[in-house]
C-alpha cells in the first residue's frame, strides 16, 4: 500500500519510537508493575473505608465500582502521553533549530512521538489493565457503552496531547519545566478525578471541577466504564469535551505561532 509520503514519514517516526521503547523491556515491565500498584493501594484503602462505614454504596458508588474506577484511571494514566518533557528538551538543548529545518512539521512530529509512546503504553499497560479489570470484576458492557468508552479515550488523548504541548512550550519562558510539568500533573490528577472520583467531591467544589476540561482526561472514561455516567450523560459530556478540544486547539495554535517568532536556539 502506497501511503501518502507526508503521512508515511510521520508513521516511520512513530515506528522508530516504538522500537526505541521496546529496547528496555525491563523498564516497560516495571512500568506495568508500578502502574498497577496505585489502584491496588486504592483497593485496600476503599475496602477499609466501606467496611468501617458499613454501607454498600457511598454517593451511589459501590465498592466494586470504585475499585473498577481506579483501575481504569490507572490505565488512562498509563496511556496518556508525556510529551511536555520531550518538547522542553528540544527547546533547552537547541534541537528545535535542527528539527525545524527537516521536512517534518514540528507539531506533526510531536503527535507522532506521542502516538508511538501511546501505542506502546496502551499495548503493554493500558489494555492489559482494562482486560484484567473487566474479567476480575465481571464487567459486562453493551457495545454502545464500549463505543462511548473508546470515544472518551480518544477525546482524553487529544486533550492530553494539546495540554502537554502547551506545557512543553513553556520552556521558552522557564527553560527547565520539570517543576511546572509535575505541578500540572498534581493539579490535573485532582481536577480530573485521579485522586478521588469527582462525584464524591463536595457540591461547591464539584461545580467548579465540572466546568473545567480536566474531567475528560480521567474521570469521563472511567465514569462511562463504571456506569457512573449514563449513555445520555456520556453523550452530553463528550460533546462538551469536543468544544474544549477546539478551545485547546486555538490555544495551541496561538502558542505555536508565538513560539516560532521567539525561537532562539540555545546549547551547543
Amino acid at each position: 500500500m502506497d501511503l501518502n509520503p507526508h503521512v508515511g514519514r510521520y508513521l516511520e517516526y512513530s515506528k522508530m519510537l516504538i522500537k526505541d521503547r521496546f529496547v528496555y523491556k525491563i523498564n516497560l515491565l516495571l512500568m506495568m508493575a508500578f502502574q498497577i500498584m496505585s489502584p491496588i493501594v486504592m483497593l485496600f484503602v476503599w475496602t477499609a473505608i466501606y467496611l468501617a462505614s458499613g454501607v454498600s454504596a457511598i454517593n451511589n458508588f459501590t465498592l466494586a465500582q470504585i475499585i473498577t474506577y481506579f483501575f481504569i484511571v490507572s490505565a488512562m494514566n498509563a496511556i496518556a502521553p508525556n510529551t511536555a518533557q520531550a518538547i522542553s528538551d528540544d527547546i533547552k538543548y537547541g534541537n528545535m533549530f535542527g528539527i525545524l529545518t527537516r521536512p517534518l512539521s514540528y507539531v506533526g512530529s510531536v503527535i507522532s512521538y506521542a502516538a508511538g509512546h501511546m501505542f506502546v503504553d496502551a499495548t503493554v499497560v493500558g489494555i492489559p489493565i482494562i482486560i484484567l479489570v473487566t474479567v476480575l470484576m465481571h464487567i459486562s458492557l453493551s457495545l454502545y457503552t464500549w463505543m462511548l468508552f473508546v470515544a472518551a479515550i480518544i477525546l482524553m488523548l487529544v486533550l492530553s496531547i494539546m495540554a502537554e504541548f502547551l506545557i512543553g512550550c513553556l520552556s521558552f519562558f522557564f527553560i527547565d519545566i520539570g517543576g511546572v510539568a509535575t505541578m500540572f500533573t498534581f493539579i490535573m490528577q485532582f481536577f480530573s478525578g485521579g485522586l478521588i472520583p469527582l462525584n464524591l467531591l463536595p457540591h461547591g467544589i464539584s461545580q467548579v471541577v465540572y466546568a473545567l476540561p480536566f474531567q475528560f482526561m480521567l474521570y469521563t472514561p472511567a465514569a462511562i466504564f463504571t456506569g457512573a455516567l449514563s449513555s445520555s450523560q456520556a453523550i452530553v459530556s463528550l460533546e462538551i469535551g469536543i468544544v474544549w478540544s477546539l478551545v485547546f486547539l486555538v490555544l495551541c495554535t496561538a502558542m505555536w505561532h508565538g513560539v516560532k517568532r521567539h525561537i532562539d536556539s540555545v546549547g551547543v
Partner: protein
Amino acid sequence: MAYRMQYLFWFLNYVLQVIMTFIFITIIYQVSNGIGGWSYPQMLLLSATTLIVIGMAKYFIDISWVSQGLMNGNFDTLLTKPMPDYLTFFTSTNSSGAFGGIISGIVLFAYAASQLSFNILNVVDFAVMISLGSVVAILFVMVAIIGSYSFFKGGGWVNWMFNIISNITKYPLSIYGIAGSLIFTFVIPIGFANYYPVEALSGKISTMEIAVLIVFSLTMIYLLSRTFNRLYKSYSSGMG
C-alpha cells in the same frame, strides 16, 4: 538556588502533595466513617508523618541523580572527595525543593496534633521511634540504590518504587492485612519511620511493643549499614 524559579516550582510541588493528601483524607472522612480504628486527626497525623519522613529522605538523597550518577560514572567525582562513604550519597542537593514537603508536612502534623491530646511518655516514644525510623528509611533508600546498581546495573526504577512506597504507607499498614504489615515492616522497613511511631503517639501500642520495635529499628540500622558498606565497597564505576 541558582535557578530560583525551578526551586520555587519544586518547593510548591512538594507543598501540593501535602495539600492533596489533606484534601483526600478530609473528603474521605466527610463522605464516610473513614478507616476503621483511625479518627480523622489520627489519619492526618499518619499522612503528615509519612510526608515529613519521605521529604527528609528526598531532601538528603536525590535518588534520580545518584542512580543516574552510578550508571554514567558521574558519581565517581564524589569518591575523590575526603568525606565518609555515607555522605557521598548526601551531597547531591537537586531535591532541595523537598524542603517544601517537610515544612508543609510539619504544618499538617501540627494541625492534626492540635485536635488530639497526648501524654508526655507517648511523645517521647514517638520522638525516639521516628528518629530511629527515619534513619532506617534513609539507609533503606541508600541500600536500594546501590543494590540496584550492583545487581542490575540500573536504578531508574528506585525513584518510582520510593514514590509508590510513600503512597502505600500514607495509610495504616493494618489495612493491607498481616502479610502487608510484615512486608512494610521487615522487607521494606518504612513502617518503622511512620506507622509505628504514630501508633505509639496515639497510644495504640503498649510499652512492651514500643520497646520491641525500638530494638528492631536498631537491628535494621545495623543490618542496613552493614549491607550498604558491603555493596559500596564492591562498587565498580559505570565508566569501567
